[in-house]
């Protein structure tokens, strides 16, 4: 069902959801925005530009207990299956979650992720304010017509089109049943928002057609840009850690004082970090900074597309902002590979 509601009705509904279950939503945090626990609808800021961290942090927390052990071989797996709602996911971040779903379902199913994910209700919203470095318009993620449980779009005139597509969405939207159905005019207004966003979410302009990216990377393995840019790379991993599609993790044990009981947790990792590809004996598959730097762009533009059929950069632009050395703009990197090719 697709409804149209005013701001007051929208807030009434959000407050009802908050009263019923664990709810997260985008809120102001100083002069930035952040997904945080939502206590009242009035705090929800659907007009935000971009959040500091993507909503990934609720689906793959920065530190997550996988199991509790009570000896050398005795353990009990830990799963988080408490239902929750996230309000205000921009389409590019939603696309990132859909990609994580595909990755964690592939091959060895990741039960920790998937069970938590199965209890999540994702309420997306279309972008109202263009952030400093967003380029979702170039990545096909400026808007999505499906993949969410509910999508909220503020249309011209100030009303909200609320598109409820799944059972999970319907389960939290009872009170919207009596709201007016969105008419053709409202849907046309939403289409206009989508078209506009596709055109304006392009702070950086990717010159490479997405389908040509894997081949371009294939040819660019020895391109000088990797070495040039890596000279200025701290290997601090900031680009990884703010990325909505980075999902790599390290696994660590935290043992209690009895040296017997403890927890095994996974913690966010990043392929730019020096120890990422280090293995027993001190061997390191990507010891050089430039190798690690290149790897990130290959992951996003080649390896993951080959694995899940989608470019694993969604154009949120967070890495561009987070990189103090200003070398992490994927658009600059991919465009540079294209220029080099044209020169020959």
């Amino acid at each position, binding site marked *: 069902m697709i409804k149209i509601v005013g701001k007051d009705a929208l807030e009434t509904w959000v407050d009802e959801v908050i009263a019923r279950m664990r709810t997260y939503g985008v809120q102001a945090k100083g002069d930035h925005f952040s997904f945080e626990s939502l206590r009242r609808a009035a705090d929800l800021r659907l007009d935000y530009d971009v959040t500091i961290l993507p909503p990934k942090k609720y689906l793959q927390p920065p530190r997550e207990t996988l199991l509790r052990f009570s000896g050398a071989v005795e353990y009990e797996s830990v799963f988080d299956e408490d239902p929750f709602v996230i309000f205000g996911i921009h389409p590019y971040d939603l696309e990132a979650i859909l990609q994580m779903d595909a990755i964690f379902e592939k091959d060895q199913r990741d039960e920790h992720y998937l069970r938590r994910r199965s209890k999540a209700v994702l309420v997306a919203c279309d972008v109202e304010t263009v952030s400093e470095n967003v380029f979702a318009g170039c990545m096909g993620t400026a808007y999505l017509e499906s993949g969410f449980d509910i999508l909220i779009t503020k249309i011209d005139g100030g009303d909200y089109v609320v598109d409820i597509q799944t059972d999970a969405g319907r389960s939290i939207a009872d009170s919207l049943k009596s709201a007016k159905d969105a008419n053709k005019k409202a849907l046309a207004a939403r289409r206009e928002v989508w078209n506009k966003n596709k055109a304006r979410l392009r702070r950086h302009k990717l010159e490479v057609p997405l389908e040509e990216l894997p081949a371009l990377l294939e040819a660019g393995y020895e391109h000088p840009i990797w070495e040039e840019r890596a000279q200025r790379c701290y290997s601090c991993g900031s680009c990884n850690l703010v990325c909505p599609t980075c999902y790599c993790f390290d696994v660590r044990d935290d043992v209690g004082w009895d040296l017997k009981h403890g927890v095994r947790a996974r913690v966010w990792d*990043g392929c730019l970090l020096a120890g990422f590809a280090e293995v027993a004996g001190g061997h390191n598959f990507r010891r050089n900074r430039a190798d690690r730097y290149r790897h990130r762009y290959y992951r996003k533009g080649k390896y993951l597309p080959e694995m899940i059929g989608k470019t694993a950069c969604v154009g949120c632009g967070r890495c561009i902002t987070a990189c103090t050395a200003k070398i992490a703009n994927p658009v600059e990197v991919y465009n540079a590979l294209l220029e080099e090719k044209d020169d020959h």
Partner: protein
Amino acid sequence: MSKPKVAIFDFACCEGCQLQIVNMEEEILDLLELVEPVEWREAMSDKSENYDIAIVEGAITRPEDEERLKKIRERAKVLIALGACATHGGINKLKNNFPEGEPERYVYGDAAGMPHLASGRVKAVDEVVPVDVKVFGCPIDNREFAAIVKSLVMGQKPFIPNYSVCVECKMKGNVCRYEYGEICLGPVIRAGCDARCPSKGAACYGCRGFVDDPNVNAAFDVMEKYGKTVEDLRSKLELFGSGQEYSDGKNG
């Protein structure tokens, strides 16, 4: 194996890192289940020359301290350097930026020549004897200290991050200090503090020292982008970074 005997010794420092161990409060009792302290000036009156693990706090500034440290090393199976003064020389090493004797004359004036004030160049513990484990920070993080002790007792290699403060800072959802025009040393400094300072709105001073291969040259480049100078950065690097070496960013 029976409980390892532990002795804690302090050299030139404020003893704040030992205090962090005392600050473990009720967990001290758990700690004492694992190890047996035999000498620890800040917390007990006993003394001993028989120990397995020596924990050394403070920087080394006098020849007699070097001798004492070497004896400690001979007696200990494992030597732990505790805190920034021990691991890097700490803020004591600022002294090495001046001609010998000048800091003493500046601070003590005519009394600078008194024998009890005599001290030389500041050294980190590993500039005098080999160190097995370094517990970084000014002061140390007692949770990290606890994890290191547990690892050692279990015969495992302790987990000590070799990634920058940015990792923990980003995980906490902080806004980068550079966005506010501040010079933060986070990108080149070893994590493990849970990004304590940036999380409270203060730039990183670098008390845990550089990561293994810090790209400090990149930092010099970055200064320009944020309207800062190389001198601004150097002055930040001095407080805890004096005498520390860093790579030229060309390798590794």
